[in-house]
């Protein structure tokens, strides 16, 4: 830079802008624009803040076809033991006949579908109901854990700390929905986690991902626009066993009164 360049700048208040000041101003402008540019990129990768979320799920009973893909995907995603005594999610079939008698079954939790179709003869209503942990807002399982190994997170998911659980099985007794089991390999309690390891990465739980008819709807109650918001707005919602006041966060649409 030489003298002639400096002199072509319009002076402020009749004074000449010094070389150092100009260089400083230039570097400020550069820094500001860089921050603006880079800042955009960093904001997109802000750390996950659980307080901004409150996860819940909707289930439309009228859409479930009992294919059992959800049960299979859950076991694959979460390393659940394959024997038919340990389920994080399962599908039940209800068959109500014209005399009002109800028969319910869930062969192997529905993991291979329902191989024997129901009989049409004398059948009044028959349908499938997917079940899973209701991630209650007032969870009886958390209330009874003696050591604090199961807990509610700030984003509305009930989890189990399998390194802290002593395996007393009180939580399994306290769950009214049969959602919990004891993992025979770790001897600790286990249950559906809403695929927590997926949702914190903005993925969907495995069961929701693979449901072919969209019977399962996953969402964030803190989000005003979402498929779950639409679901809870447009359908009549029921929860399982409301009289127990566990405040379940799995909302069933078109739930039949025979479902327990």
């Amino acid at each position, binding site marked *: 830079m030489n003298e002639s360049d400096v002199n072509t700048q319009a002076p402020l208040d009749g004074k000449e802008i010094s070389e150092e000041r100009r260089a400083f101003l230039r570097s400020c402008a550069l820094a500001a624009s860089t921050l603006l540019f880079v800042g955009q990129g960093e904001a997109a990768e802000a750390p996950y803040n*659980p307080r901004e979320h409150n996860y819940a799920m909707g289930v439309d009973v*009228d*859409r*479930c*076809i*009992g*294919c*059992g*893909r959800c049960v299979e*995907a859950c076991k*694959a*995603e*979460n390393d659940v033991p394959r024997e038919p005594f340990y389920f994080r999610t399962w599908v039940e*079939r*209800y*068959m109500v006949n*014209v005399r009002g008698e109800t028969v319910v079954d869930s062969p192997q939790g529905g993991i*291979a*579908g*329902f191989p024997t*179709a*129901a*009989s*049409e*003869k*004398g*059948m009044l209503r*028959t*349908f*499938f109901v997917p079940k899973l942990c209701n991630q209650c807002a007032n969870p009886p399982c958390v209330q009874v854990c003696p050591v*604090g*190994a*199961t*807990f*509610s*997170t*700030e984003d509305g998911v009930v*989890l189990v*700390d399998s*390194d*802290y659980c002593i395996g007393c099985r009180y939580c399994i007794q306290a769950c009214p929905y049969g959602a919990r089991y004891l993992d025979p390999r770790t001897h600790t309690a286990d249950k559906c*986690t809403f695929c*927590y*390891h*997926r949702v*914190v*990465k903005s*993925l*969907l739980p*495995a069961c929701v*991902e*693979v449901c*072919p*008819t*969209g019977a399962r709807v996953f969402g964030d109650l803190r989000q005003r626009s979402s498929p779950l918001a639409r679901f809870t707005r447009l359908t009549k919602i029921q929860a399982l066993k409301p009289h127990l006041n566990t405040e379940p966060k799995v909302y069933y649409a078109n739930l039949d009164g025979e479902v327990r």
Partner: protein
Amino acid sequence: MPQQLTRLLIVFVALIGGLVAARHYLLPRTLGEKGHYRAAVLDAIAARPVRYAGREACAVCHADVAEIHGKARHQTVSCEVCHGPAAAHTEAPTEHKLPAPRERGYCPLCHGYDPSRPTGFPQIDPVAHNPLKPCISCHNPHQPEPPHVPEECRACHGQIARMKAVSPHVLLPCTRCHNTPVQHKITPRAALPDKPRTREFCGGCHAQGASGPKEVPRIHVHTHGGRYLCWQCHYPHQPELQE
């Protein structure tokens, strides 16, 4: 202080002191940060391996298939429903190839007829429907629209059709009562058939003065059943419903 008490006090103080020290040593560091649990476990749980990649991940490389699939009947069916967990495949595509079910036994898992499935969900009889041929010989899984639209309603509404077939209404075609737009066979939920709305409609056959065979039961259209409309008592697909 009595001698007993001093001795006991020594024992108790030693015991409690030991317990307090043990607690200090054993208490997990992150307990109490967010609640009565070890906050450190949240990271451990969040770090579990992901096995299903999600359909958005498939679209990145298989955009052409995703485009067709996204407009077709199976658009609600995720890629991984049929192709299995794909996270490993997204990491190393050539080492972890995904299976594609081609055998006939696979599709009936969803589409085999089952009365417990919702009415109108496309179902077939796996034994009778084009026997021995693989499903994919007529249906492209990514665009499974049947090679020609179903001729009859019974293709999707089998239960209703079977019930009507053993009822007095057996000779009535479905379209006699339900105006069905052609579009219904292509995008069913977007173009629904209608249903009769008036007593006079049923009265077309069942009113006292209606033309037709005398075996058809006749009633006073305006007074029969009082305040109720015909279908509030009589199920039209099986009007005299027996077990």
